[in-house]
């Protein structure tokens, strides 16, 4: 019995310590997913949370300035001006009309300050073959837009 409890204590200490570290890491890096439309309805402390927002890059809106890149995200009929201040170069896939995910916090002037930008091409190579090709590009395309644009694609939020 004594041996068993030794193991018990050992296992408990390891799991508890790692659990504590996980909790610390969680607090440090948790990021809320929001849509552009939801951002307007947020109030108070939820505005200072780190968040991730998805949308489509408005054509012609990308401006490279010194130390930052400004662009506008569109989604669900709303727009959101974004300033990217991260040091990593923007991904090659970040171009007009690409689907982008930005991570950061809303700034005081209504601009979203992003530290991380991920982008995915608007998969035109999947959509191009027209109506009924491959894995039915049109629904795929639609769910991609909804999916990246806030991760609330019906199939996911429903279950």
């Amino acid at each position, binding site marked *: 019995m004594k*041996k*068993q409890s*030794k*193991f018990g204590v*050992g*296992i408990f200490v*390891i*799991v508890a*310590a*790692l659990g504590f*570290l*996980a909790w*610390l*890491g*969680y607090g*440090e*890096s*948790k*990021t*809320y*997913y929001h849509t552009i439309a939801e951002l307007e309805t947020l109030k108070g402390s939820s505005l200072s949370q780190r968040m991730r927002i*998805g949308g489509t890059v408005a054509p012609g809106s990308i*401006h*490279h*300035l*010194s130390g930052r890149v400004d662009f506008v995200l569109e989604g669900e009929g709303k727009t959101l001006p974004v300033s990217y201040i991260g*040091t*990593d*170069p*923007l*991904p*090659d*896939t970040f*171009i007009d009309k690409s689907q982008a*995910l930005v991570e950061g916090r809303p700034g005081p002037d209504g601009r979203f300050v992003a530290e991380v930008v*991920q982008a*995915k*091409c608007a998969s*035109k*190579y*999947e959509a*191009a*073959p*027209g*109506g*009924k*090709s*491959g*894995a039915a590009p049109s*629904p*795929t395309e639609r*769910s*991609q837009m909804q*999916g*990246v644009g806030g*991760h609330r*694609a019906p*199939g*996911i*939020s429903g279950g």
Partner: protein
Amino acid sequence: MDVFGSFALVLAFVCAVYAFGGGIAAIVTRHPLLIKSARQAGIATCCLIFLATFSLEYLFFSDNFSIAYVVSHSNRDLSTFYKIAALWSGQEGSLLFWSFLLSIYVFSVLLTYRNKNGELMPYVGVVMAGVQIFFLTLNNFVASPFKALASPGADGVMNYVARTDGNGLTPLLQYPEMVIHPPNLYSGYTGFTIPFAFALGALLARYPGEKWIHLTRKWTMIAWMFQSMGILLGAHWAYAVLGWGGYWGWDPVENASFLPWLTGTAFLHSVMMQEKRGMMKVWNVWLVFITFLMCILGTFLTRSGVVSSVHAFARSSIGAWFVGFLSVIILVCLGAYLKNRDYLKSENQLDSIVSRESSFLFNNLILLVSCVAILSGTLFPVFSEWITGDRISVGAPFFNKVNIPIGLLLLFLTGVGPLLAWRKTSTDSLKRNFGWPLAIGLVAGVIALLFGFRQIYSWICLVLCVFVASTVGMEFYRGAKVIRARTGASLVASAVELTMRNTRRYGGYVVHVGMVFVFIGLAGAAFNRDLQKDMRQGDTLKIGPYTLVLQGFDTKPEKNYTAQRLLVEVLEDNKPTMMLYPEKRRFSTTEENGTMVAIHSTLQEDLYVVYAGTSPDTQLPVIHAYLNPLVKWIWFGGVVVVLGTLVALLPNRRAVLVLSGAQQPAAQPLARELAPSVSLRERHD
């Protein structure tokens, strides 16, 4: 050829259903002809899947742009090399590729054991056919790669069209690693089907003894080796192509590939407890089940895009199928376990906390904790939305905080575990086995401190790496010395002889050394530096011992893209060393960009130069230079891991006769120490 391919797929589906149904009937009736026909249906399934895969590849090579999948992933200018890779660059093709690789395994298993293990094989065949049926369902009815390009006309009739050229392959995938990374990773994912099928089959058949473990050891190691290679090649691809200076970002798909590796590694270790001591039977069976579940989950995460990721090239309704399949697997495993759990009774208890058993136990525990942490972190957005309604993700700090200590603990156990005795280890043997390695490790640590090493985790990692390497070195040295004393061969030749006599044990040590190298490389990340600068022609940028001089630019038109190159001269300690050519690529068909990072790699550090675009203020090209210490050790360590696994897969050389025999125990105390473990281990191979 497309008709041929889809017909082969349908036929494969029919055969798989027969192999499954006929197999069950064979188990019930025990009719030898039925058993044979089910097995042959399984073989036929595999051959038909091979045919279907080759015909899709043929469509790529014949530039058949009437097929939607070919149009989406290839074009006339695409080189041969990438036309092979185009097969798995999209959803439909990669699912077919999954079936293809699985078929290679199933085919080999069915042929290898066609006249052996008659009691067990029908069960194994049924499980394998079940997995094949699932993927063939997807291949045939959900995501067929053979769909012709067509659109419904005004009258509702489909108009088939052929295009003159395709859309080309995504530039991100046009990189040599992308041709070998997915096959490796998928070979890992699919390979774990075999131990799963044997474990489930043995449980269902109540197959006596640990034989299923001996039968699957090689298959598990092959799958594990491919998985390891796949993960490292993926990391290398991310490093060399994505241009952000790192190789691992805790991206959902990276995590997905890592999960089965963790549980698979746990399994490879804990089976030894079952083989030697008859313990952990329930645990082992569940580890295999979970590993297989993780493989399916990994495929699901990659293909469905449930969690957004840079890899999620495809988002589709295919997710529901995978969730269904995962549920079926869980139910079947749970049912089989509940029904036959008395068959898995443990024969022994843990004796002491300082024993081989307990080191395996803790190894398994922390591998599992790591797996749980990574899994929950990866799926956090999905779960948090279910529970709170908010979709919350966790990032790199979460994963790093948990996994760095886990990695270090594992590294520690890597050094300690193999030298602890089974059951109970005496203080005396602790001193003998660990005294020197510990001292050497600590000396290395003190030296590092004197050189101004101040990163705590990296420091611990360094000490442990030296410690583990010394324990392994000592093991080889001791064993080799014994052989040298007997045969008079050189120490190196004796070490080789030693390894060949017990490939499993010493191959395992080689794998451990490979992991030490990987850890050395990972520890280097704490010292990464980077600098970014707008560069006029002739400007210089200094980073570490290197000075980069921008000599000029050029434009290089290639078949498929146009490359803009920066010509960067590199001076090391002010001596001209080499030229680097970081590139931006513009792909004509897709109007997409690609980056080619220029890397000068030495064992000490990588100089990693990115052409980061044009500065908006000055209109000058921007160079982003990184100095990443020790990265090369990771890739090198990966090679060693693979070599070690290959050694462990070799059969033992039978020259053990020299060691055994009457005079053996008396000669040297070391011989006595070596001999029991040799005989203990060799019994099973």
